[in-house]
């Protein structure tokens, strides 16, 4: 009979062991995805390229109206809020500076990633989970095809490219909307807005923003694919659970990475 202390220690050890094993699995999984472009046959590479194009079409092209609408609202709202403060503090170019700081550095990649997660991440998780439940993933393995090569890699590349393209689109529209709002509210000349933009926006901002968008896209695809592929065969009730888990984990990833990058680069 073990003492309560020994039982607690044993339980704690089991939890740590399980967490470590999961971490090793995740690292092994990411390693497989990273290695996979170098293992593809020419035929598989062509197939993957076609899937990437389709993924970009579904994730980026089809999301343009939604992203455009959100960007328009966000750009206008930021300027509206900033203008009220600027008038109070007597700082003329503050709204445009704020627009750059908030939109480019934070909101652009963040909102784009959330839209990509909501539209495509959930679809990927559901598709992978349903493929696994119906034995399609297992069938691929039985024919010597790695599901990472056939399913995951094209989605990681596709979402990464899509998130970057959508972030460019979001930022451009949000700026346009913000500058239009500034002009309407405070009669700020267009030339002055563009000049402020040029002075405030640095190359670091642009690089960090697009790198962040690419990481968000790849991370969403990785998390959603992984979660979808880990459901059990012939267990359809696990499909919605997998989608929910994928969304929660992806959101934690997006906000976590965003905070870490902001702290590391701008703090």
């Amino acid at each position, binding site marked *: 009979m073990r003492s309560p202390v020994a039982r607690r220690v044993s339980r704690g050890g089991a939890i740590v062991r399980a967490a470590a094993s999961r971490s090793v699995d995740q690292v092994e999984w990411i390693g497989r995805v990273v290695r996979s472009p170098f293992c593809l*046959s020419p035929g598989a590479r062509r197939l993957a390229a076609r899937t990437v194009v389709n993924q970009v079409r579904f994730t980026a092209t089809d999301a343009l109206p939604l992203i455009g609408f959100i960007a328009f609202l966000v750009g206008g709202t930021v300027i509206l809020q900033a203008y009220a403060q600027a008038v109070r503090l007597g700082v003329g170019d503050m709204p445009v500076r704020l627009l750059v700081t908030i939109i480019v550095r934070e909101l652009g990649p963040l909102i784009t990633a959330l839209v990509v997660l909501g539209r495509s991440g959930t679809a990927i998780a559901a598709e992978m989970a349903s493929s696994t439940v119906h034995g399609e993933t297992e069938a691929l393995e039985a*024919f010597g095809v790695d599901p990472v090569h056939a399913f995951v890699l094209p989605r990681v590349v596709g979402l990464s490219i899509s998130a970057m393209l959508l972030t460019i689109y979001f930022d451009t529209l949000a700026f346009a909307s913000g500058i239009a709002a500034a002009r309407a509210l405070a009669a700020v000349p267009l030339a002055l807005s563009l000049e402020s933009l040029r002075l405030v926006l640095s190359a670091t901002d642009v690089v960090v923003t697009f790198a962040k968008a690419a990481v968000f896209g790849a991370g969403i695809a990785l998390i959603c694919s992984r979660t979808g592929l880990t459901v059990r065969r012939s267990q359809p009730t696990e499909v919605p659970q997998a989608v929910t888990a994928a969304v929660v984990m992806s959101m934690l990833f997006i906000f976590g990475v965003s905070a870490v990058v902001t702290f590391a680069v701008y703090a």
Partner: protein
Amino acid sequence: MNAPAELDGLVLAAPGDEPVGPMTWRMPPGVWAVLLSSGCAAALVRACTGTQKPVRGRVLVLGIDPASCSRAERQRLNRRCTPWLLPPALLSNATIRSTIALPMRHDPAWRQDEVEQRVDEVLELCGITRWAWRRPADVPPPARTLASLARALGPRPELLVTDDFASRMDREQCASIVSMLRSSVPAVMIATAVPQRIGAAVDGVVDPLQYPVPEAL
């Protein structure tokens, strides 16, 4: 010469049931077809392709144990030994043609023009050319079963492992399938619970496993 397939004290987990086995058996080299009377056909097919680990014992396919080899070795083995899966588990978001072509496209040994040609051949062989550009959901179940067979024949395997197709077909259909397999594959391991339906059509060794108790041939 390696036996195409060899079971060595193999115990398999059957879903929702007691483990099946132990099974010890050797498929003689050079025979065309072997019938196994087994209540665990699906589990046996999975064990042969390395997608299910045995509870105990091992299975050797073309001299290799799929449960203990590396992922890369297993991929190479799965290109030499293909399964006829039932239910077919075809890719739901791809056409029948793409699904059949996929394993060959991922195999560096196949050129693109060879893949296209081979896919046309197996589609015609299985009589499902008219369904080639449809997705599985738009295809009747018998054609899906044949599409699964076409996918297994595509890579020109050295050994074809079949799930229990005989229990889904009558004697005439079984005879026609066996005749098609005879012209296409060097060795076939047929796991079936109703060997009497195809026994007459096979001129290879008919070798029922002693576990579980086979039906009368």
